[in-house]
Structure formats: C-alpha cells, structure tokens
C-alpha cells in the first residue's frame, strides 16, 4: 500500500495542475499515513524527546517528577578552583565514555566490513543455480533467526575456557597449545564478540544483497559472455555497480544496528572497559547507578553520534554515486 501511495504522489507531482481526483487521492493517502505516524510518535518520538529532556536535568530514577533543569551540566560543566585552575566535568570530558564510543565505533566498522564482504560472497553463491538451493537458502538464515540472547548464551558455552567445544576442537586438532579464555581476556574478548556478530548477521546482509542481485537482468551477463569478458571483470564492472544501491542500504541497516550493540556484549563478556559499548554504559548509568540524567545524556549522545554517522555515510555515498554526473 505504501509503495502505491508513494508512486501516486510522485506521479501527481509532475503535472502542475492537480485534478479533483488526484487531490482526493492525496488526501486519502495522508489519512492512511496518520495511524503509522501516531504510532511512531508515541513509541519513538515521545521517549526520544523525554530522554533528551532528562539529559538536561538532574533526574533520579526513584523520583523523576522532581527533576530540575540543569542546562548542559550533564554534558559539560566546570568549576574554577581556588588556585585558578579550571576543572572540567561531564560527559564530553569523561574518558570512560569516549572509550565506550571508541569500542562501539571500532566494533561497528569491523563487523559491518566483514559482514558486507562475506554477505556478498554468500549472496553470489546463493544466486547461482544449483540443486537444493532452496534448502541452502533457508539453512543459511538460521543464525539470523535465533534470538541474540540465545545465540550469545550458546556461544558463551562454546567459547568457555574449560568446557567449551572450540577449545576442545582446537586442542585435539593441535591448533591451540593451551585452552584460551576467549571472552575473558581483554585481547580476545572483542574478537570473540566480532566472530559471533559476524556469524549472526552475515545472513541478513546476504539476503538483502541477494535481493539486489536478482534485480540484475540476465541478458547483461549473456552479452558480456559473448564478448568474452572475464568473470572477475564481470563482477567488478557489472555486478558490483548494479548491486550497489542494495548493498548501500544493507550496510546502513547494519551500521545503525551495530552502533547500538548491547545484548551480545552484555551477555558474552565481562563488564570491563575492553568491550563496554555506549549502550551498555548508558544502561548502567540509567538503572544500576543513581544517575538517570547522566545516562539520559549518554543516550542522547548515542542518538546524536548515530545520526551524524548516518548522515555522513549517506552524504559520502551520494558523492561517489553522483560523482560522474557533476
């Protein structure tokens, strides 16, 4: 339904004079959109505005009504000490917060990069004609279908240092000289989280890319084959440019998702600075500590950072996309 209304509204935009019928259709389309807009405002808009509001107050979870306006105090405040030196406090100068931001951004970029490449490979395989393709397509989606908490628990057992199957296999095959505590040590914890996340979300990426691949007309490849174009060249000259819009959308979906990673890290690794992400830290401040306002400031910053990164991504993507036309 949405696509139809979209199509009709774009169609009517072209002729300057709108007929009575067209105007009626636009009104109807707007009417149909209202329920969704209301739902969005209630479940997304209102909580977001509340979080932003609380980030400018000194709210405490046990008494939200008594919140007092403190301006930007949660973000940055300073006191001038007797010696004349200035001491800065607040989220913007909190090293623990910036460490969490770095952890999150690093996680997001590495995981999405791997997922994009692996997802493309999987999609190409699934796009080829072979026997039992339907079954393979369904099977490959299983990691994506398992709830994250369940797969995180499952992996935490497989990665367990004493009883884990990965250590057992590694030892038996002679790949490991001693059992490794994958999730416990700071050096390997992030790698473990990345492995699980890539395992889980590559199918999602593959699915979106596959949809893009199937839009590419087959006759282009036939023409290329007749001209004797090498398959690798076919991929870079035909497949990649044509699948790019789908790929870009898939990447942005994953990027948004990865930047607010919470469950996997919360379940899989110790609550240490090596893997703590923005969401984990915001939750901790909101609920565990008596710092609801500070946690709200973190949520607001998280929202801002994701928004900025998304805008930058879309902008950069468009620059390259339209580059030839300018």
């Amino acid at each position, binding site marked *: 339904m949405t696509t139809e209304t979209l199509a009709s509204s774009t169609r009517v935009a072209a002729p300057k004079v709108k007929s009575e019928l067209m105007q009626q259709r636009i009104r109807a389309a707007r009417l149909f959109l209202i329920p969704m807009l209301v739902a969005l405002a209630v479940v997304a808009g209102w909580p977001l505005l509340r979080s932003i509001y609380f980030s400018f107050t000194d709210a405490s*979870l*046990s008494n*939200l009504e008594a919140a007092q306006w403190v301006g930007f105090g949660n973000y940055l405040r300073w006191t001038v000490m007797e010696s004349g030196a200035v001491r800065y*406090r607040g989220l913007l100068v909190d090293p623990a917060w910036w460490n969490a931001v770095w952890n999150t951004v690093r996680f997001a970029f590495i995981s999405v990069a791997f997922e994009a490449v692996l997802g493309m490979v999987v999609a190409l395989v699934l796009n080829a004609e072979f026997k039992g393709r339907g079954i393979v397509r369904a099977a490959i989606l299983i990691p994506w279908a398992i709830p994250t908490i369940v797969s995180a628990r499952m992996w935490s057992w497989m990665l*367990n*240092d*004493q*009883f884990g199957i990965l250590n057992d296999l590694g030892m038996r095959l002679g790949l490991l000289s001693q*059992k*490794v*505590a994958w*999730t*416990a*040590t*700071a050096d390997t914890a992030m790698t473990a989280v990345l492995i699980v996340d890539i395992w889980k979300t590559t199918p999602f990426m593959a699915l979106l890319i596959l949809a893009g691949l199937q839009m590419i007309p087959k006759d282009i490849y036939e023409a290329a084959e007749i001209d004797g174009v090498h398959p690798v060249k076919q991929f870079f000259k035909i497949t990649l440019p044509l699948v790019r819009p789908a790929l870009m959308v898939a990447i942005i979906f994953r990027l948004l998702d990865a930047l607010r990673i919470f469950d996997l890290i919360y379940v899989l*690794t*110790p*609550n*240490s*600075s*090596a893997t703590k992400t923005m969401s984990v830290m915001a*939750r*901790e401040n909101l*609920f*565990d*500590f*008596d*710092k609801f306002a500070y946690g709200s400031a973190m949520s607001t910053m998280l929202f801002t950072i994701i928004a900025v990164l998304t805008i930058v991504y879309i902008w950069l993507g468009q620059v390259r996309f339209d580059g030839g036309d300018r």
Partner: protein
Amino acid sequence: MTLNKMLVAMLTSVTLVAGAAQAAELSIVSGDTGNGLEFLRGQLDKFEASTGHKVTIVPMPSSTTDQFGQYKLWLAAGNTDIDVYQTDVIWAPQLADQFLDLTDAAKDVVGQHFPSIIESQTVNGKLVALPAFTDAPALYYRKDLLEKYGKSVPKTWTELTATAKEVMDAERAAGNAEMWGFVFQGNAYEGLTCDALEWVKSYGGGQIVEADGSISINNPQAAKAIDLAASWIGTISPQGNLAYMEEESRGVWQLGNAVFHRNWPYAYSLGNGADSPIAGKFDVAPLPAGEGPDARSAATLGGWNVAVSKYSPDPEAAIQLALYLSSAEVQKERALNQSNLPTIQSLYDDADIAAKQPIIPSWKEIFQNAVPRPSAPTQVKYNEVSSLFWSAVHATLSGNGTAAQNLEGLEADLTDLKGSAW
C-alpha cells in the same frame, strides 16, 4: 476458595488471622542458583497449601548486578506485577523508598534474628526487608589432594599460592591436565567486589570506604593484596577466571579440576550432592589471612532478604509470604537443603543442622566477624563505588596496569564521586 481449603488453612496457619479471607495471587522474583529454584518452589507449595494463596516465581539472572538493574527499573515504574523481592544485603539503602516498612509486621519475630543483620536492613528506622539467610564465604579445599601431597590447609594467601602451584603442577605431571590451583569470582561484577574486599581487608588494607565515609582504598597493603591476586591469573587460576561468576567457578571446582575454591556456603551442599564427583573429598576452612600489621582472615558479608514492594496490590498477603520465607521453619529447611547460613540465632544450636551441614555451626563466628561492603556509608552511590572498585581490580587482574596505579586512579574517581558528601 472452597470451604474445605479454608478449614485446612485455618488449622495449619497461625498467621491466618491477619486475613486470608480471599486467596491472593502473588509473585516473587528469584535469581537462585544451583537447585535453589526447586527448593523455593517446594517451600512456596507449603505456603500455598497452608494459606490458600497462589505464588508464582519469576526467575531472574543469577548475577546480583543484573537483578538490581531490573528491580530498580520495575520499582521506579511502580510495577504491580511483583509483590515480593529477594534483595541482596547491600541494596537496602538504595531501594528503601520503594519497599514497605515491615517493623510492625515483624515485631514479634525480629528478636530471633541477629541484631546486626536486622540493623543492616533498617534504613532511617524503617525495616526494609526481612532476612532469609546470611552469607560468609569459605575456602573450599580438596582434602584428598592436600593429604596426598602432605600439605596443610593454607593459613595465608602466600601459602595458598605456593600450595596451589605445587599440587597443581604435581597433578598435571600425573596426567590430570585440566587441574587448576585456585578458582574464584573474577568477572567484573559485584562478586569481584566481594572477593577483592576480602583480599584487601585480609592484608589490613581497609574496606574501600570506611564507616565514617573516608576513602581508604589507595594504600600499599591493598595494592599488595591485589597484585598477589593478579599473579594468580594464568598461573594457578585459569585466564577464564576473569569471566567467572559463582556458578562458573563452581563448575570448575565441582568437576574436580581445582585444588582451592572461594565460594559461599551454598556450594557445600551441592559439592556433596549425589552426582558430584568431589563428594566427600573436600572440606572448608576460613579464607586465608594476608600479611602485615593488621592482617587477618576476612570474609565479605553477604546474604539475602525478602522485601515487599509498596506497589503490591495485596500487601497483606505479600507480607505474610515475606514473614514465612524468613521464618525459622523455612530457614531450617534452607540450612538443611541449601547449606545457607540461618539468620536466626537458635538454629546454630540445632542438632539436625549440625549433623547434616556441619559447616553451619562452625560458620557462626566467621559471619559474625564478616566485613560489610561499604553500602551503608556510600548509600545510593554504592553501586557506582562498587563498579569503580571492581573495574580497577579487574583491570589489574587483566594485566592492565599495576594495583598501585589503578588504586590511585580509583581514589581520584571515588573522591570525585563523593563530592562534598556521600
């Protein structure tokens, strides 16, 4: 409720007078480990039979840190779904506003409990929760292995380090490749605060924040204690110990893969369970002492309590349940089945308990000398204090800076957090 049930209830319950005129539907949360859930269900069945109320258990994660976050959220939202909360001993000051005052309801039974425990659950004259059991950890050791290698039970942490290493190496050489010397709770959570407080206190390094609110953690004795613990990781304790909570460490221990183990008394009955490979092969001792002027054996005070939500739609029935769960009857069952330490003084002289769980009478003195975590002086900021402390310790254990460096940073962070007053 049928007349029949009413009669049964009237006959069996003395608390009924308060009014079980109609049956209530209650919910209680439980983050119990081991076979704790099963045990709780059994006790609730008895409660249901005698009162006619219905009680549903809402299972929670076993990590006390995880539980707290959830409860705080529910309570702040005025959630009416949960009537009775099981609360950690450290939570009383932070959640006091959200629980009912049980002073009146418990005035007849309060005298049975140890006064110090009742005091820990009293905030500004309000009795926030009733004690269900108390906790003071033990050093579990494999008596068969110590005998085999002619070792005595270590009295100090240094001795423990040496003995653990020797026995572990000998066992490994004998073909038991999975053997480790010592397992404890090293994950970055409340449990590490307990373990590390014991190390620090045993070396005479104070208790993080003293009763008067002064920050004492940055001192050489504390650093020495934590540095020693850091030396265990990768030598006598597995690397994975950095991610162990109670149940993970008990897993290694109960499979027979550790010489020493630090845990709460609940691991005693589980370790002696019918399916346990180490049943009868281990014993418990007080935790080792440190070295230095004020060195002593130190155990962190734990324990769980039952509190009634002020948002409970049926507070009378909920209070009845809280009273029941803290009663001598249930505490005795708990002691017998779960080897949880009772909070009722007379149970320490109970012959049945002494026969079945010998750890309990001998633990009376230890828990009475146990060290409280600084939840009283730091009040609502306790969770953050604890989090800063365990983060500093976890960093040191992970080899990320020395104890002295991390404790210096910790002191600065705590001073900031404290501001002018806790």
